[in-house]
């Protein structure tokens, strides 16, 4: 079996949006999106001692290799980075196109995603990629197993769990509660740089520059601004009756 895990290199610490480009500032230190660590862990757990190959796939600047190496240090076998100046500024539509192209080359049986990226918090990329690949998709996987040509998923919902089966090849986005990612071992870290790491350009994927980056995006950030102050807020000064005032307010709103 072959499992591809899509991972993202996200800025460390507090995210900052560059007011000039209106893009997330990716110049500083970055790290593996922690939600994706759950997907890497799940792939490694499914692999166990078998000859399953785990490939970590990412789209990003050259520095994203750091996060791919973290996945390799944890135990992934190989890394693929799609990196091209023309891909900078890709929105979800363009990103899903590029990732789908990279995944189509790999032809994995199972594609795993983390539930969301901690920088942009989109939480839809896995759906867009599955759509482009024409594969079934299951999100919020709490438990995952593969049995022959079928993936079995216990899916977390607001009201309980769905038990879902899907034929392989399939795309699964795992919940951050599915597992506790392992720490990379010293030998894993030291061995990571010797594992294959391919960097692919748009040309390698056969994608036109016009279908990537801002040119290939369907959304445009027009302006950035602070959230407006709440005009309808009400301040209760405690003159001894604050508790009653709060109760009255909640009762009026039919919240209690």
């Amino acid at each position: 079996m072959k499992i591809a895990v899509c991972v993202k290199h996200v800025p460390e610490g507090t995210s900052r949006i560059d007011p000039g480009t209106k893009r997330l500032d990716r110049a500083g230190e970055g790290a593996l999106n922690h939600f994706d660590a759950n997907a890497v862990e799940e792939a490694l757990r499914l692999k166990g001692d078998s000859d399953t190959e785990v490939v970590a796939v990412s789209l990003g600047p050259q520095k994203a290799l750091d996060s791919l190496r973290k996945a390799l240090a944890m135990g992934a076998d190989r890394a693929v980075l799609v990196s091209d100046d023309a891909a900078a500024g890709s929105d979800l539509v363009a990103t899903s196109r590029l990732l789908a192209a990279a995944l189509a080359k790999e032809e994995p049986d199972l594609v795993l995603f983390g539930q969301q990226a901690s920088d942009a918090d989109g939480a839809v990329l896995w759906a867009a990629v599955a759509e482009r690949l024409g594969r079934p998709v299951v999100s919020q996987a709490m438990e995952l197993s593969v049995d022959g040509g079928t993936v079995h998923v216990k899916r977390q919902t607001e009201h309980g769990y769905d038990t879902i089966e899907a034929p392989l090849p399939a795309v699964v986005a795992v919940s951050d509660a599915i597992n506790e990612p392992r720490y990379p071992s010293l030998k894993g870290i030291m061995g990571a740089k010797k594992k294959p790491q391919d960097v692919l350009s748009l040309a390698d994927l056969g994608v036109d520059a016009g279908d990537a980056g801002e040119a290939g995006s369907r959304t445009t950030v027009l302006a950035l601004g602070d959230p407006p102050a709440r005009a309808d807020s009400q301040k209760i000064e405690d003159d001894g009756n604050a508790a009653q005032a709060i109760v009255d307010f909640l009762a009026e709103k039919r919240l209690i």
Partner: protein
Amino acid sequence: MATTAKKTEIDPLDYLAVDALLSDEERAIRDTVRQFVTEKVKPYVGEWFERGELPLELIPELASLGLFGMHLEGYGLPEASSVMYGLVCQELEAGDAGIRSLVSVQGSLSMYAIWKWGSEEQKQRWLPAMHAGEKIGCFGLTEPDAGSDPGAMRTTAKRDGSDWILNGAKMWITNGSIADVAVVWARTEDGAINGFLVEKDMPGFEAPLMHHKMSLRASITSELVLKDVHVPEENRFPEISTLRGPLSCLNEARFGIVFGVVGSARTCLETALDYAKERIVFGKPIAGYQLTQQKLAEMALEVNRGALVALHLGRMKDEGTLRPEHVSMGKMGNVRGALDVARTARSILGGNGITLEYPVIRHMNNLETVLTYEGTHEVHTLSVGKALTGENAFR
């Protein structure tokens, strides 16, 4: 010379940008251990310290990170560089010197002794199991009446046919009570110093815990008591018969300390800096007062100077140019610097500085041990003095 390099902003916790001197791989190892310590050690270690415990569940976790004997080669060991080993010590001690001591004693004293001086059979038997954390080692050199002068040791090894009978006592032995194997140094009848692998179930061998410590409380410290312990010849290190044996091992371990204490000091600086920015006195944060700023600036200086010295010595060790006298200067300066940082941090935290709610007094008390063990500050001073003058002032 004109340069286009961009000046980065000052990082209060890496003022001199020492980080930039590390390779990606070194940073990755450092970051992994830092994350482990942040998640698995720091939230709990105050409690362990108060109760005087070292949770043994940590051992398999440290083993799965691959840290035991990480800088040794062969026998399935990781063969990491000295700098990598040092950075690991630094991050572990940023949590607690007791946890760093556990790893130091397992890897740099016990495993190193076997790796350096053991027979092939001894290495095969112990090194892989000790790397995996399945077997724990300790190292017995210091005695109740022989510390800085190990040549005064009274533990004896007498021939019994082809085997040996050991008698004596060792003291201040980290990991002693949980050890499966103790590297015990003893004097033979002809005056030689020999190393023996004493196994925990050998009759006459006991390793009682030492109590009433006010320092390194999240660490196991023991006595080793040997009463007519029968040790087979195959458990003796075959080649070494002088003090060079144990001293070579100590040199490995104190190298780790040069890095380790930078971790302690960094945690103290970090804590004091956060505290000083939030603690309001006379209407403004104490960070805004000159007396506090002087303290913080001196602390940052020591942390950064220590980090640079440690890294420099690490690079020398990897190049093969490091001498014990270099390590002496590193240990001397870095431990003293870290202790100053910890004491100053304690004063910035005021009353809060004496509680285990904050890491500072724990590090401060731990550093009192670190100042003394693996060669006292005084002995290292004399080692540097001798290297400077050519005069031996030890005796």
